[in-house]
């Protein structure tokens, strides 16, 4: 632990935040891990519309073993198996990591159908845990901040003897504001009893620290160092400087760990709502179990937590360093996807000759169908709306605010997707069903646009599958009758190779997803700038939510149909050829469903604007 502190002195915080990799993107803990079915056909049943989480299994190779129980902390005990949650943050990243790792070579995917499912309740609990973690981090920040500025001071005030046990008095130049966090910290330690009562307390404490910290970024380091000095003084803990001077010979390894932890802290202060599981919950366990000692024992405990964080990260994610790039705190889904796509581009560019390789890159195809652009556009509309909503809410007060908030709440409820499980009987749904349902739902939105493109894409993919299936029995018969001729010339046009089927499957999934996201983007644009309609935002949200479900179910159906094609066509193929392809299809279908659901969530702020507009009209 002292090594850690020492390190932070040597490696001051990274002001750019570039080095900050792991913060909210800690591997999410798995709620339910389905055991890996051995055969491809068994795998077929495994795809649900849940987000495929890679948290504990960041690369496909690590897919197979269920997450070690040790990583499943005792917090978050509820949460039954449930359809996917939606909250932005970890899962995006998780899927992106999937995406990336999948790209690395689907051949690595040895066992299809292991999907880790996280319940929605997780997400509900996250913010709390996040807060508690952040708080932990804040402590850490204090610590690190203190060492930082202490070192500065050390440089400024050379003559100060190293043997000093206590930090020097506050420099007169310190702004009065820096007293505040100190006061809060002390207050917190005064009422350490409250810690035991629940998380709420932790939350608010973290918040107050956070707000103070963010008030003046420039002085945070200084201010926090005072906090820590004060705390230390109270608790009788040696000053960081002293510790650092004692531990100059700390190992390089822990230095790195500390550096990363520091970065994590940096991120924490400005990322308020990151959903986080895995590490965060582990931390909260640590925080919980250490509970009081965090306060009374002070920094030791915090360092323990910090260390534990790193351990957990390192243990849970051996590919952690590689994933750093995708874990920047401001990553949006489109950014993450863009990075994945660019990586693919790079890869394909280096493999010019391998034409087949190129065919089945989901990310590239998704971009080719303009999915990324539409997603970015949607994100932009969503962000703009969000800030507008915020400013409106902050301008209101009293009863007005309460009513609006209540309406917002109702709207938000419509955005939580109902539970939906895979229903086997729905598999053989009529071909027209999708078209009918989507058209109907779309008309309920009352916007001057139609889902024609989406329906066309979907229909042509289904026709392809139908054609494939109808060609099968005939072909088999023929091959029996006239085997030699078949193998010589008929082989290529009549029979599709498993690679062809896979490529088409991935392509269709990418196109369907891109179209769905385009549809959401257009919908958002029309909600914001279309003609006023006699339909409430909540009703629209309900239709859209239903549409999301229909789309995701469709993706699931597709993945099943495509994999059936693969299994049929690949009877003679070896499992190590066929299985990765099958897994790849399931994986991308599942990811596609996640992207669609995330895109759906981006519509919430847009509809909130509608709610606000409806209110203003009413009052006029």
């Amino acid at each position: 632990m002292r090594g850690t502190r020492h390190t932070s002195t040597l490696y001051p915080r990274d002001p750019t935040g570039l080095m900050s990799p792991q913060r909210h993107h800690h591997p999410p803990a798995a709620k339910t891990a389905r055991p890996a079915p051995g055969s491809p056909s068994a795998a077929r049943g495994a795809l649900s519309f849940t987000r495929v989480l890679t948290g504990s299994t960041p690369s496909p190779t690590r897919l197979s073993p269920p997450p070690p129980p040790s990583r499943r902390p005792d917090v978050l005990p509820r949460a039954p198996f449930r359809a996917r949650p939606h909250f932005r943050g970890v899962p995006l990243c998780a899927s992106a990591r999937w995406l990336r790792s999948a790209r690395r070579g689907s051949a690595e995917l040895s066992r299809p159908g292991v999907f880790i499912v996280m319940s929605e309740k997780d997400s509900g609990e996250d913010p709390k845990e996040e807060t508690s973690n952040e708080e932990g981090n804040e402590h850490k920040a204090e610590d690190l901040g203190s060492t930082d500025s202490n070192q500065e001071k050390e440089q400024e005030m050379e003559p100060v003897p190293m043997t000093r046990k206590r930090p020097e008095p506050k420099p007169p130049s310190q702004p009065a504001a820096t007293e505040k966090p100190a006061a809060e910290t002390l207050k917190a330690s005064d009422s350490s009893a409250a810690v035991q009562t629940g998380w709420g307390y932790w939350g608010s404490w973290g918040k107050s620290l956070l707000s103070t910290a963010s008030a003046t970024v420039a002085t945070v380091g200084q201010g926090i160092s005072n906090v820590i000095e004060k705390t230390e003084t109270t608790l009788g803990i040696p000053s960081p400087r002293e510790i650092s001077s004692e531990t100059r010979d700390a190992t390089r390894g822990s230095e790195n760990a500390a550096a990363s932890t520091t970065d994590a802290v940096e991120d924490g202060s400005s990322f308020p709502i990151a959903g986080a599981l895995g590490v965060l919950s582990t931390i909260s366990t640590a925080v919980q179990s250490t509970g009081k000692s965090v306060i009374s024992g002070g920094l030791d405990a915090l360092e323990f937590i910090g260390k534990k964080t790193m351990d957990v990260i390192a243990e849970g994610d051996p590919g952690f360093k590689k994933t750093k790039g995708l874990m920047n705190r401001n990553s949006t889904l489109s950014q993450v996807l863009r990075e994945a796509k660019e990586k693919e581009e790079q890869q394909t560019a280096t493999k010019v000759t391998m034409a087949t390789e190129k065919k089945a890159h989901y990310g590239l195809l998704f971009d080719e169908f303009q999915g990324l652009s539409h997603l970015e556009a949607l994100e932009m509309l969503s962000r703009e709306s969000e800030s507008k909503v915020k400013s409106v809410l902050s301008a209101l007060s009293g009863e007005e605010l309460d009513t609006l908030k209540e309406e917002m709440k109702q709207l938000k409820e419509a955005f939580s997707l109902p539970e939906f499980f895979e229903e086997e009987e729905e598999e053989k749904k009529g071909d027209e069903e999708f078209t009918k349902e989507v058209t109907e739902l779309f008309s309920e939105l009352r916007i001057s646009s139609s889902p024609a493109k989406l329906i066309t894409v979907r229909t042509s993919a289904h026709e392809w599958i139908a054609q494939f299936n109808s060609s099968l029995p005939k072909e088999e018969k023929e091959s029996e009758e006239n085997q030699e001729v078949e193998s010589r010339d008929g082989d290529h046009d009549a029979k599709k190779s498993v690679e062809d089927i896979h490529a088409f499957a991935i392509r269709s999934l990418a196109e369907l997803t891109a179209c769905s996201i385009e549809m959401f983007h257009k919908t958002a644009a029309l909600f914001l700038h279309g003609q006023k309609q006699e339909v409430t935002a909540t009703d629209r949200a309900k239709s859209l939510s239903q549409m999301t479900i229909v789309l995701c179910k469709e993706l699931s159906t597709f993945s099943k149909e495509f994999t059936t094609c693969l299994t049929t066509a690949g009877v003679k193929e070896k499992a190590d050829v066929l299985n990765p392809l099958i897994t790849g299809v399931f994986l991308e279908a599942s990811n596609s469903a996640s992207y669609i659901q995330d895109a759906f969530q981006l519509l919430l702020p847009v509809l909130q604007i509608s709610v606000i507009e409806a209110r203003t009209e009413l009052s006029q």
Partner: protein
Amino acid sequence: MEAIWLYQFRLIVIGDSTVGKSCLIRRFTEGRFAQISDPTVGVDFFSRLVEIEPGKRIKLQIWDTAGQERFRSITRAYYRNSVGGLLLFDITNRRSFQNVHEWLEETKVHVQPYQIVFVLVGHKCDLDTQRQVTRHEAEKLAAAYGMKYIETSARDAINVEKAFTDLTRDIYELVKRGDISIQEGWEGVKSGFVPNVVHSSEEVVKSDRRCLC
């Protein structure tokens, strides 16, 4: 889909409603002409590779904006990250020509601190009998703003390729001369991936440009 390109340029297509922006782009990217076309909602996206010199491909990302006033706040957001633009008017619609000036003013405000290389496009030149804007006056206006002028028809596929490739070439020259440079936080120009197996020696020299990160 070809992943190998030297640069990626983002082009924006603007102009009054119904002058034929989407049709022009569709003709260029998809090679077909749709008789009936729904008005664009907000913004649409297209892309195509253009080979400006043998072995030198440039990826064009084309932003098709809605001409309708109500979407202006959305389309405005796209000026900033464009390196080039096609400003369309309908030669059979005098009003759309008169609005060219306003379009330029509009972009000027929103593109800061960057600049867009514009080309003025007189569209629907197949409808010469209904012409309301003479080539001469259009050329004069274009020259006044330092733009090139070209007349196109998406229906008859006249000058569609030329309009895009000429603009691309002009931008490419500016990039080559260093008048336009790749900047972080600006999406107008991006350098692409140069494959390891490059045949022309020229391109090897340029490999230092692949900075995509």
